[in-house]
């Protein structure tokens, strides 16, 4: 008799938890009057025009914002994967002076709250002339090419420690240098950790707001999250539908990643304690 309690409870919780997301999808297709009056999930008057009017609501179209976001996220992925991989190989597999100390420092930066660094980094980048320049993305991207995302370094170090040492030893005896071992042994075997890093890098950067808000001041340079906040300024009822439509579009890339890599994402936070 009690076998039905657990699945029923789970289904109920899933419905409650997912309700806001379903509501967003439905509301993105509702007319302005309906958004207030119709509390159901489905629109009575299917209004796809929310998407077209939201897309070109501001002087710069959302296409540009999506391209900017994709570029920032894409370059961040490349930077994180490459630079964290190099650092992890050194910290996880090579023997050199002070390695233990550098590893401890890396763990220390892992616990450093990122928001503390925003003010000083801003001042530094500004004095370098990187803020508000022709291409304002340098402050967003350069840190990721210098392995500052300690989470990913840690994740890859943990992964590489699982690769049998005998492989390195054998290669060394065959005369392979650490560079060749990196290229032919560690790099190919580290692919799962690289993919996990790439996916989380993309999702976090796509969702990131604080840094992009601070560094992007010109409308044409805006990324999607920064552009979405423009909707908050306009309080008119007619803006709600387009606002939902664009919010929904902005979540689709992350959702697709979720669908494609669900298992990997869940395993990823298991092995490393990464937060989504």
């Amino acid at each position, binding site marked *: 008799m009690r076998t039905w309690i657990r699945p029923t409870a789970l289904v109920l919780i899933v419905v409650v938890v997912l309700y806001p997301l379903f509501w967003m999808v439905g509301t993105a297709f509702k007319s302005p009057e309906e958004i207030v009056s119709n509390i159901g999930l489905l629109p009575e008057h299917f209004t796809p025009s929310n998407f077209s009017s939201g897309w070109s609501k501001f002087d710069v179209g959302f296409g540009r914002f999506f391209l900017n976001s994709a570029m920032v996220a894409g370059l961040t992925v490349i930077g994180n994967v490459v630079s964290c991989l190099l650092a992890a190989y050194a910290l996880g597999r090579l023997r050199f002076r002070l390695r233990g100390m550098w590893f401890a420092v890396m763990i220390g930066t892992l616990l450093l709250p*990122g928001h503390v660094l925003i003010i000083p980094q801003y001042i530094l980048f500004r004095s370098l002339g990187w803020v508000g320049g022709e291409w304002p993305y340098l402050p967003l991207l350069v840190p990721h090419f210098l392995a500052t995302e300690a989470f990913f370094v840690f994740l890859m170090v943990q992964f590489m420690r699982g690769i049998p040492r005998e492989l390195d030893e054998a290669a060394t005896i065959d005369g392979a240098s650490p560079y060749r071992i990196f290229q032919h042994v560690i790099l190919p075997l580290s692919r799962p950790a690289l993919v996990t890093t790439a996916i989380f890098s993309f999702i976090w950067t796509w969702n990131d707001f604080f840094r992009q808000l601070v560094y992007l001041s010109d409308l044409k340079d805006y990324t999607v999250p920064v552009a979405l906040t423009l909707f908050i300024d306009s309080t008119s009822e007619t803006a709600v539908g387009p606002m939902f439509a664009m919010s929904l579009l902005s979540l689709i890339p992350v959702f697709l990643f979720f669908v494609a890599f669900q298992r990997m994402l869940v395993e990823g936070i298991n092995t490393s304690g990464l937060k989504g």
Partner: protein
Amino acid sequence: MSPAPPKEPAVVRRAPGRPRRRENLPGYLFLSPWLLGLAAITAIPMLLSLYLSFTDYDVLTPFTEATWVGWDNYQRMFTADPSFWHSVRVTVTFALIAVPLKLAAALGVALLLNRVFRGVGIFRGLFYLPSLLGGSVAVAIVWVSMFNRGGAFNSLLAVFGIEGAPWVSDPKYALQTLMLLAIWQFGAPMVIFLAGLKQVPVELYEAASVDGAGKWRQFKHITLPMLSPVIFFNLVLETIHGFQGFTSAFVLSNGTGGPVDSTLMYTLNLYINGFVQLDMGYASAMAWVFLVAIGFITVVLFRTGRFWVHYSDSEGG
């Protein structure tokens, strides 16, 4: 805190008497991007902001022209700026309520899911989805609209004959809607709890059943102690995370911390002082106070953890 360097497995094939091979050059070559980042992106800015926290600096001039003011910024913060203490109260309230509730939800659902049945992976994924999406501006916008005066939540209450409230624009409730948004993202700690639950040996429960212990006593005396390292891990991560809430408060208040400063999270206050008022000296001081506070809280958590976290074996969780 600093972990011991990893143990090297014994090198079997090394000839006796041959010196231990060092890889100093390749080691530092591979480490060089990280070292550069550590210096340029982390260490130097931190020291710079420590200096600037003792100055009056408006960011529009080069920082070499900042005016030294001694302890003025810190003094103003602790004695003359009510918004500082207010934002501390808001942030601590947020973390004290949202973090335990989020962890409780995560543990509760993890216990429900800790069985082998068809579709368990699908449930796990669906519960995890809000953690992936929830930090975004888009979801914050949806959340705020949902709890607005004419939003879906009030309409839903009306169906049951309950009169809602303007949750978002009422200073009494605005922070609570943000807490709910944080709790909604319980999927990430839930996944970690699930992994922890799988590690609890089944024999313990079997032995307890034989001895006549009921479900509740098994939970209290087996599950909770065995899971305490994972609970501790989640508690530390979520607390640090909770203190840094920014996006949802920014979206709800359009960057002001309103209504009536009720959502003025510490990081939002920091943002307003630094990037709206352009008072970078003061904002640097706020950032340093924040860093010291987070460090202090982490140390306190680790200290108290000694009393209730049980490590059952030397391997760790």
